[in-house]
């Protein structure tokens, strides 16, 4: 299977400090990879570096064969990478319709506004409401809907369950599971291991800015000793 994302020896950080210390990770087209690790391991920095929000010191970021390490964020976005940031981060003063309108692309084939509203009817009901008038779950759906309207080949999901009630997490999980047949690949950073295991084909574990494990989700899940050693749980 062709890799939609290939990251090699990626080093990045903030103000001279190193957070990513030689990350190697590939994501096959259409597959979900859960990126796990303890707080401070570098997961969010990895997502931001792939997205172009953090400039790497060195290394390679290939998206569908195109080198994008150090490219401007809008270039990365236009190459088919979309991010659902941690904390949802919708445009608070804009309505649901305006939030989605910002992401909608002319001549979209797969993801149109109508399809997003069909997939998430709650957003259709709330389309005239401002972003900051939505519940946490609705904001998360809006953030996901906005990312889908970019017609991504790679989706970066940064803690989609963060701050959500268990019932709402289940709704978000169902929504993301529904995307699995759409040919979209995803990197999922998630503290909720149940959600990560439910969604991901493969698990990668990051420690101190490096990938220290990579394998099928079922194997990782079965080996509780390794999960405990790497994540402190299990």
């Amino acid at each position, binding site marked *: 299977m062709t890799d939609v994302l290939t990251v090699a020896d990626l080093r990045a950080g903030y103000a001279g400090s190193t957070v990513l210390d030689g990350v190697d990770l590939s994501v096959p087209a259409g597959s979900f990879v859960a990126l796990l690790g303890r707080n401070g391991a570098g997961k969010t920095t990895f997502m931001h570096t792939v*997205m*172009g*929000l953090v400039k790497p010191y060195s290394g390679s970021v290939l998206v569908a064969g195109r080198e994008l390490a150090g490219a*401007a*964020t*809008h270039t990365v*976005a*236009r190459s088919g990478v*979309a*991010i659902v*940031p941690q904390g949802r*981060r919708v*445009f*608070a*003063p*804009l309505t649901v319709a*305006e939030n989605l*309108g*910002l*992401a909608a692309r002319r001549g979209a084939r797969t993801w149109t506004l*109508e399809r997003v*509203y*069909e997939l998430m*009817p709650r957003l*259709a*009901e*709330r*389309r*005239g409401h401002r972003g900051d008038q939505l519940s946490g779950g609705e904001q998360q759906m809006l953030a996901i809907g*906005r990312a889908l309207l*970019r017609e991504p080949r790679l989706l970066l999901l940064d803690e989609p369950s963060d701050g959500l009630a268990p019932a709402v997490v289940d709704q978000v999980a169902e929504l993301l599971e529904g995307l699995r047949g759409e040919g979209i690949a995803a990197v999922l950073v998630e503290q909720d291991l149940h959600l990560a295991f439910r969604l991901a084909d493969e698990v990668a574990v990051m420690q101190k800015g490096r990938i220290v494990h990579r394998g099928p989700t079922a194997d990782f899940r079965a080996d509780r000793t390794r999960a405990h050693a790497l994540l402190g749980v299990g």
Partner: protein
Amino acid sequence: MSAAERTQAVDGIRPRRTAGKAVVAVAVLLLLAAAPLVLGAYPVSTMTRILAFAVLVLSVDLLTGVTGLPTLGQAAYFGAGAYTAALVGIHLTSDASVQLLAGLVAGLVTAALTGWVAVRARGVVFLMLTLAIGESVHQVADTWSVVGASNGLAGMPPITLFGGPPLLAAGFVYWWVLAAAVVVFAAVALVVRSPYGRTLRGIRDNEARMRALGYRPALARYGVFCLAGAVAGTGGALWAAHARFVSPGDLGFEVAALALLSVVIGGAGSLWGPCLGAALVLLVRDNLSAAVGGHGPLVLGLVFVAVVFLLPRGVAGLAAGIRRRKEGLS
């Protein structure tokens, strides 16, 4: 109920609100248009100045309220428009429409020449850069003999329209300025409600997020900076059409500060609120000042402090709050 039906149900509220706004807008327009029929020459002249100044304030709101770029430089483009219109009036034609177009182009070109550097900064740095641009243009006007230097540019003949006789009566000039200001207001409102306006509001809210959606915020900011320059230049041309005299004081720091003050008082980003703010600011400065022993600026300062504490979102924010309460009750 399908998603489409739910969408239609929610959308049903919107036409009613839009119709209400349209009724208010038409009523205000009719009142403004009727003013010269019932008011004397002095109040009409005051209203003409307010309208021209409101166009400048509109340009400040476009940058400050809509795009999140607080500016102290718009008076420069207002001045460029005023001086250009006056020069056209003195040397080329008294036709107000030509002068207006010249003022628009002057504001646009001046903003295009100075904006590329300014839009790369944000926040206080942007504010200081625009202040520097404003003061530089002010210095040019104050020393350049072609535009009368510190004496200003006098001798502009009364405007005409489409080959007609000179418009000597205050009411006719007022109607011209009102018509032009309404067109500019409508054009700016259209821009703000367009996808480009949505982009600008997205940039105001979070620029990094906009980049992650594939936008290039610097380009959008440059575009709106040029547009705001054109709007300010138009305001300057209208100011010159009324005053028939332009001086460096018309593009000084005080004018820029008063325009920003009008936006804060009226409610940044609402467009109509800052226009009300413009009326309040000019009335206090020019009319109330005499009644309080020349302490108009002090009154303005007190109004500013009161607004910041009591109406942090300005007059427009107060109106929006009342509307939301009504909707909540119903």
